[in-house]
């Protein structure tokens, strides 16, 4: 536009147009603190959740039951009868902590793919938030905290149901909850970044078929990765799920190869979260602030 045409009319006042300063009125406003901004963002996502929780909560209870039935009673009794369990553990106690971590991965994927794409493209809620004092980092933080909430709820329900049906050997099972949340975040944060880089949902096909499904099978979930061909094993080390599975299993069963190994797993998961955060912030900003 090289010139502008001025169109001037009398101003009309909308309701409540007093001259009062502060946030309710016109004029200079105190800046919002970051906890206020993040709380406002979380408030939106929780309002959405209040409308949808009934649908998701049934699945949260059902999925551990299906897994326990299939793995514990089905596969587990076979493995225990023919091989005497896995490394001194009953198959059920071997597999349940790993499934907690795997379940976290699936919950995280559900929250960070189509959902996030929807807020970019369909209802454009991220863009609507950016027309307010909120910043990109507030939106990302608030949304990810909501994902933490979903992961914590799903993992707690899973652990409670599995414990009720004898899926754990002891109280170490409680560690599976924070470990499940961390494992889920190690997926959610990088996948938030991936979603921001995608214009269409087409990429998710490859993500689910080539990354998520194989990870579920080859991360030591259902059998130790030592059973895999040697050349495949380093791939497991490079994925968040294997670290989550090893941590959850070690914590739940008390069978840990070394404390150092446990800290390496935690560090690896934190690295996925940290690097994912840097990428997500950059890609969200590039997409939303053009």
């Amino acid at each position, binding site marked *: *536009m*090289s*010139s*502008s*045409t*001025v*169109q*001037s*009319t*009398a*101003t*009309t006042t*909308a*309701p*409540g*147009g*007093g001259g009062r300063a502060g*946030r*309710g*009125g*016109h*004029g*200079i*406003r*105190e*800046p*919002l603190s970051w906890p*206020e*901004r993040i*709380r*406002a*963002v979380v*408030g*939106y996502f929780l*309002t*959405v959740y209040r*409308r949808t929780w009934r649908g998701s909560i049934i699945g949260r209870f059902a999925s551990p039951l299906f897994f326990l039935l299939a793995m514990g009673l089905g596969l587990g009794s076979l493995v225990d009868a023919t091989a005497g369990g896995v490394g001194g553990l009953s198959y059920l106690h071997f597999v349940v902590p790993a499934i907690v971590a795997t379940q976290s991965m699936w919950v995280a994927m559900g929250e960070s793919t189509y959902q996030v794409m929807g807020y970019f493209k369909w*209802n*454009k*809620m991220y*863009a*609507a*938030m*950016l*027309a*307010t*004092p*909120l*910043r990109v980092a507030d939106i990302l933080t608030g949304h990810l905290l909501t994902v933490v909430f979903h992961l914590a709820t799903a993992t707690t329900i899973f652990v409670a149901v599995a414990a009720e049906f004898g899926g754990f050997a002891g109280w170490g099972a409680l560690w599976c909850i924070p470990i499940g949340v961390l494992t889920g975040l190690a997926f959610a944060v990088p996948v938030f970044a991936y979603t921001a880089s995608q214009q269409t949902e087409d990429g998710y096909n490859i993500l689910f078929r080539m990354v998520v499904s194989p990870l579920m099978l080859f991360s030591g979930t259902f059998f130790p990765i030592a059973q895999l061909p040697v050349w495949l094993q380093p791939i497991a080390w490079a994925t968040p799920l294997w670290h989550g599975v090893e941590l959850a299993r070690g914590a739940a069963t008390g069978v840990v190869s070394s404390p150092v190994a446990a800290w390496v797993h935690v560090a690896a998961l934190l690295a996925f979260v940290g690097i994912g955060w840097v990428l997500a912030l950059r890609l969200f900003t590039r997409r939303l*602030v*053009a």
Partner: protein
Amino acid sequence: MLVSARGLTKTFGDFVAVDGIDVEVRRGEAFGFLGPNGAGKSSTMRMIGCVSPATGGELRIFGQDPAVDGPAIRARLGSCPQADMLDEELTVQENLWIYGRYFGLTKAQTRKRATELLDFAQLTDRRGDKVEPLSGGMKRRLTIARSLINNPRTAPARRADHRPGPAGAAHPLGPALPAQTSRRDPHHHDALHG
């Protein structure tokens, strides 16, 4: 001075969308950009709304620089986007309540303001309904009402199909209100339009 721009420029790659415009808008003025499709009106309004960084030139809103004080300026603006950007799964009033919280209004302030704005936008009887089945005009009115939740000093709005009309005191939602209830000529408008 609400808005002042000198040589304001916006480029997308090599493409120049806004080529060095000068604009001044004073308090009490209603101001509109006119131009053919693709002239750069929306791009200009997005820069003024502090949701899109200027590529060149100088821009001041309330005397502040959007590049430095974007969030503080946005706290005082009422920005009405071209697309409605409503959460259609939520109710009419939930859309307002949520938005007020983004500006740091307390729950009580937000609810009070939402009640006033619903009345203003003639949506009071639909306040508890989901947004999705509302008519296009009602959604538009809700978006406009939402842009006023923080009681802004200036309210930029972008709407391609507005035509300017002569000056006159009237309801600010004139063009968006249904013809039979509009309190004035439907072509009048007062907010900033891109």
